[in-house]
């Protein structure tokens, strides 16, 4: 059972939109932005509030790649594997990040919930290939060395904030 504050937050988000089917995606996008994931309990609650079945809400949320039912790290690193990044060697960057963080194709988030590493099909920053995105910030012309340096910086930043 989630803390009551989650439901209050959900109410607040629903109030930004109209309580109907068409608002489902914007609502759960905002929820995900708030918590970095979509708590399944909350999805059922939202479905009820906007008058659709829970299964329907689940079918929508599971269809789109952006929604995650699992908690994500503080820093979500999205490695672009679009065509331009691919031909400019994005995979070694991805492999380096995974190796440094002890992650794999099936394990995306570190146990300390600091980092999540995912791939995306294209960030639209092809002129800067290979590119990666940390939360909403794009980093250009990556190399495995630059990726290691970036991880060090992010760790230091997280420690400072803690």
């Amino acid at each position, binding site marked *: 059972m989630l803390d009551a504050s989650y439901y209050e937050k959900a109410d607040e988000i629903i109030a930004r939109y109209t309580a*109907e*089917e*068409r*608002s*489902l*995606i*914007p609502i759960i*996008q905002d929820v995900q932005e708030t918590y970095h994931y979509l708590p399944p309990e909350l999805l059922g609650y939202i479905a009820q509030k906007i008058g659709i079945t829970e299964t329907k809400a689940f*079918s*929508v949320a599971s*269809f*789109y*790649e*952006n*929604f995650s039912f699992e908690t994500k790290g503080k820093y979500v690193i999205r490695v672009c*594997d*679009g*065509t*331009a990044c*691919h*031909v*400019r060697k994005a995979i070694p960057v991805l492999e380096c990040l995974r190796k440094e963080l002890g992650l794999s194709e099936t394990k995306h988030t570190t146990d300390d919930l600091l980092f999540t590493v995912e791939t*995306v*099909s*294209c*960030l*639209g*920053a*092809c*002129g*800067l*290939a290979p*590119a990666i*995105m940390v939360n*909403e*910030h*794009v*980093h*250009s012309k990556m190399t495995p060395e630059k990726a290691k340096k970036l991880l060090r910086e992010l760790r230091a930043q997280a420690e400072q904030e803690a």
Partner: protein
Amino acid sequence: MRMENHTDLKQVRLEAQRKLKETTCRVLVCGGTGCLAGGSDKIYRRLLELAADQPRVSVEFGPEIAHTSIHKSGCHGFCEMGPLVRIEPYNYLYLKVQLSDCEEIFERTILRGQPVERLMYRQEGKLYPSQEDIPFYARQTRLVLKNCGHIDAEHIEAALAVGAYEGFEKALFEMTPAAVVQTVYDSGLRGRGGAGFLTGKKWKQVASQKETVRYVVCNGDEGDPGAFMDRSVMEGDPHRMIEGMMIAAYAVGAQEGYIYVRAEYPLAVERLKLAISQAEEMGLLGDHILGTDFSFHLHINRGAGAFVCGEGSALTASIEGKRGMPRVKPPRTVEQGLWAKPTVLNNVETFANVPMIVLHGADWYRRIGTPESPGTKAFALTGNVCHTGLIEVPMGITLREIIFDIGGGIPNGKKFKAVQIGGPSGGCLSEKQLDSKMDFDSLARIGAMIGSGGLVVMDEDSCMVEVARFFMSFTQRESCGKCVPCREGTKRMLEILERIVDGRGEPEDLELLRELADMIQSTALCGLGKSAPKPVISTLNAFEDEYIRHIRDKRCPAGVCSKLRVYKIDPALCKGCSRCARGCPAGAIQGVLKSPYSIDLNKCIRCGSCVEQCAFGAISVEK
């Protein structure tokens, strides 16, 4: 200020133009995603600080400073060279600007109008001070992208000063809706999203429906890997696109509009939101626009990470809050689109073309490009090419001109091998096809398509089988799963391609690939499925040899496919130090100290660690 009528609009525009003229020096710091990643926001703030903190000159009276305005613009397009700073009226373009360069730019250029030559573009020893002279720009025809990088994308006044909403103004006050539709029809504008359907025809069909509740939807779900033209328009000149949608709404009698933007483009969403709210405040959007009977409301929907939502019926389903899956057509979107109402659905670049067509007329537009594909097309030129970035050229230009004249050719002295055009729905073209014209019909004839306009150049180090596998894995992952040909067919094609790059290909695989491709192309439900086999078929046609070498000889001629690499030690270079043998995890390297070593290919696991360890560069991949 809210504008109540036509006179207000004219006055506001005059005022904006007057302000623009007063400015004696404009500094435009590129605020596109690419340059932002390079730290252009810091450069922007630093230049602002410098211009404000001058003790010698008071901001109110100083002739230089008071009239200096610093703007955050949209993408200039020369992404490879970012962060970019453009300084008007000199039109100097500074490349790869660092925070530490700001003082010099301020002292020399902003205060004195002198160039900082070391930041300027050079090619073969020649210096190009102004942006317009640089070959990358000089050979382009920038109409849709005209303002990108040249105006402040966050203020509507900046757009108004350079003519935004003039097309809308003309449509609203001087033309009937039917005349607007006819103009767009006569211009021959074709949808820039991929299929190249006549925009005017679409509008005519919507305008002729019995149902009077109608929608205008803009497809900004630019999902093709390797494409970012639409992002640049949304970020750099959002009002041009909004104006296009408003003209469409007026023409077909729509009351509401939706812009569907990819989730991966947060800056575009932000800039569009800002642009819409400014247009609303000024009375350009909302009820009774400029005192007329025309009302139009615009909304933004963010995508949620599904490539298939770029397909019309999937996109409208997503706006409705459903799973974004295509449906069987007919009925088509023009008859039953969003909420089953007649809908004009065009992409960003298409809408961005509309204002100038209305303003200058169909005949003017038809003079650009080719008779069958009038106008220009924006391309995202990326991959192994010297100058990557956003370009806009007239339709009918050749690939050779784009890659070698504008793009500056292939870097590092490598040879051109192929260019992938149109993303996962397009094809790979080889050297032989470099002189083919870039327009909708010419490309269709050689089995490729403009698609959304991604151009990824590949040099000799790219393996075409691997590229085909890459695209197939993309479409397979993005297949929505609704129809069997796409869901199962792409999966099987991917399995075959994976087998081939792993060295387990069979001679009959090529026939099987062609057969599956044919089946998927003729039976899949939507455009994504129908075009999914194109990257495979086009590489198979142009580079069949490479497939055969993978299958028959178990070799990857480009040395890309790791499982097919053959490492060899050059006896002339090997000093016999034994370092590689000691580091080989498979124990595949043998030899006697101080004489050349050799690799046992049966034991070799192709990890490449020996190449990294050799201090003499004696180990390489055989091609």
